[in-house]
Every structure is written in C-alpha cells, then in structure tokens.
C-alpha cells in the first residue's frame, strides 16, 4: 500500500488529512536551525535512548540490596549485548545532563526566559532537577563502592539537618542509613515516578515552545 493510500484510508475514518497538512506545512524560523538551538532536542533524544535501554536493563536488574550488584555484574559480563546496552544507558545519561545544562546556558545568555516565556523557564528548571535526580538515583542502583559512598553523602547530609531532616529522609528513603529499603525506593523513583513526571513536564515544555515560538533578537 502506498503512503497516499494509507493516509486516504486513515482520512476516511479519522479525517486526519487537514491536520496533517497543516502540521507539515508549518514554517519554522531559519534561525532555529542554528547550532545552539539543537541542545534541547539532543537532550530529548538522549532521554528516548534512556527509555529504550532502561526498559531492557529493567528486565535483568534486581532492586534488592543482596542481589543488585550481582545483577549489574551479570548484565555487564554475561547477558548478550548487556554491556553495550548498559554503556549506552550510561553515556546517554551523561549526554542528556550535558545537553540540558548547555541548553539552559543558551537560554540564560540570550535572556530568552524573559516575558512571555517565564513559565517555560520554570518548567525547564524543574526538568533540570528531574534530570539530576534521574542521574543520582540511577547511580545508586549500581551499588558499587563509589556509587554507594556518593549516595550516602547525598542522603545523609540532608538527614543531619535539625528538626525534620532525619524524619523526612526516613519517610522518603525508608531509613537514615543506606539500606536495601533505600535502594528499593530509589529504584521505584528511577523507573516509575521520575519517568512519569518527565513525560508530563516535557510535553508541557514542548507545547509551550510550540505555542510561543522561539525567542529571537534578530
């Protein structure tokens, strides 16, 4: 079936032709194909790589303190292509953080957060925090000596705050020490809560860009 026939078939049922043509015929500012404008898109692409490789890794990973490290070892040394998928997840994560930070610098130095784009800056900062939390929680899942130490600092430093510090950490991470309870909660954060929040915030971020267009001073 040719593409035209497929579109005809769909159009008969859903009347998509008009919307499709309008979407494809839209014009974008030529400026938007400049090099510095690709950073947000690269962050999103890296995120998609994280979703695909993350789903593959979740089929083997064991979110349990006694089994976690061994399952990462099995993924790395025994599962076919396991090391490649894990390394892709690792690198796409680093590229995503770098792209998000550079994207933010671009917006900052152009002053593109000014009226009318205030709220999209706020959504963007929330996405930056989500990205950091993704990285922090994912790193903890590796459960090797280096990541365990870094996670301990991130969790125990806030727990040392007076009044509610220890209580808040206990509620969110199950314990004021890094135990299996913490690992399970960080896993839930990493593979469920954060992805859900990221999908929603990214959709809002992109819809706002679509509605407002790209800031320009030319």
């Amino acid at each position: 079936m040719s593409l035209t026939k497929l579109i005809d078939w769909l159009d008969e049922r859903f009347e998509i032709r008009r919307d499709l043509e309008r979407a494809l015929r839209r014009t974008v500012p030529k400026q938007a194909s400049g090099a510095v404008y690709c950073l947000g898109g690269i962050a999103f692409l890296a995120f998609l790589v994280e979703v695909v490789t993350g789903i593959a890794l979740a089929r083997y990973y064991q979110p349990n303190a006694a089994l976690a490290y061994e399952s990462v070892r099995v993924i790395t040394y025994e599962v076919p292509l396991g090391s490649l998928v894990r390394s892709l997840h690792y690198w796409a994560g680093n590229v995503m953080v770098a792209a998000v930070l550079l994207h933010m610098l671009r917006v900052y130095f152009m002053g593109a957060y000014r009226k009318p784009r205030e709220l999209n800056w706020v959504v963007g900062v929330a996405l930056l925090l989500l990205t950091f939390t993704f990285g922090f929680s994912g790193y903890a899942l590796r459960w090797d000596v280096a990541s365990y130490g870094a996670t301990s600092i991130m969790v125990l430093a806030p727990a040392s705050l007076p009044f509610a510090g220890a209580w808040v950490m206990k509620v969110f991470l199950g314990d004021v020490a890094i135990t299996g309870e913490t690992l399970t909660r960080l896993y839930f954060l990493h593979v469920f809560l954060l992805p859900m929040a990221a999908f929603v915030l990214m959709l809002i971020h992109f819809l706002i860009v679509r509605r407002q267009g790209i800031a320009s001073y030319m």
Partner: protein
Amino acid sequence: MKEIPFFPYQVVRELALASFVLGVLLILAALFPAPLGEEAVPGEVTAIEPQWYLSPLFGFLAFWWANVSENLSIAIALPVVVLVIILLLPFIDTGEEEAAPPMKRRAWSFAGVVFILVLLYLAYYAYTANFASYAELLP
C-alpha cells in the same frame, strides 16, 4: 525573520542530527564501557565518587566543612536558595525585549560567567579533596 518549511527541510535536518548523535552514543558506549567497581558493603563508606554534574555540590559541602563551619545546615540550605533564585530569574530580570544578545545584557552575562567559574572551582575542589574530608561529613 526568514522562515523555512518544517517539512521536509527542518525534518531532514533533525533526522540527520539525530542519526549523528545516536552514532556518537554508540561509539562512546562501544569504546568506553560503563564502569563497575567492587560491590558495596552496606554501612561502610570506603570511596566517594560523585557524578561530574553533582561534584560542585559535593565540593561546596567539603569546602564549607574544611573552611567555614562544621555545622552543615547553612551549607545545605544555600544551594536551595540559589536554586530558588534561578527558578525565579524571569521575575527578577524583567527586561523589555523578549531576548537580547549577551553583550547587551552585560551585568547578567557577567553574573552567569562568574557563577560558572564558581561551579568549576567547586568541582575542582571536589576532585582534589581527599576522601577523609568527605567521610567526616557523614554523621
């Protein structure tokens, strides 16, 4: 301002860039596999390696501990304050134009560069700080 059609021009450009980025990711993953150290022993902290993007935060905590005070309350509150300021930036910088070149916003550009340099210094501090200076942060 000059406009170009989204389809096919922009779509083809985006696909080309996406292919390039995916290729770079594959090459990085193949040449430099993700590291995996020794297994952690719960309750025992023998090494601390923050990720590069969290190292300014770790550097700040270690710097505060070594040079300012052993009370970390303010050191933990301060990054939160900085974050709130960043979050509220569009309501602080209420310039007339919707965007302007960096050289026309000299004060803001200067502040941005200084902030980046501070973060870089703190990251450097985190990488050169000895392990003991972190271990002391643990209660």
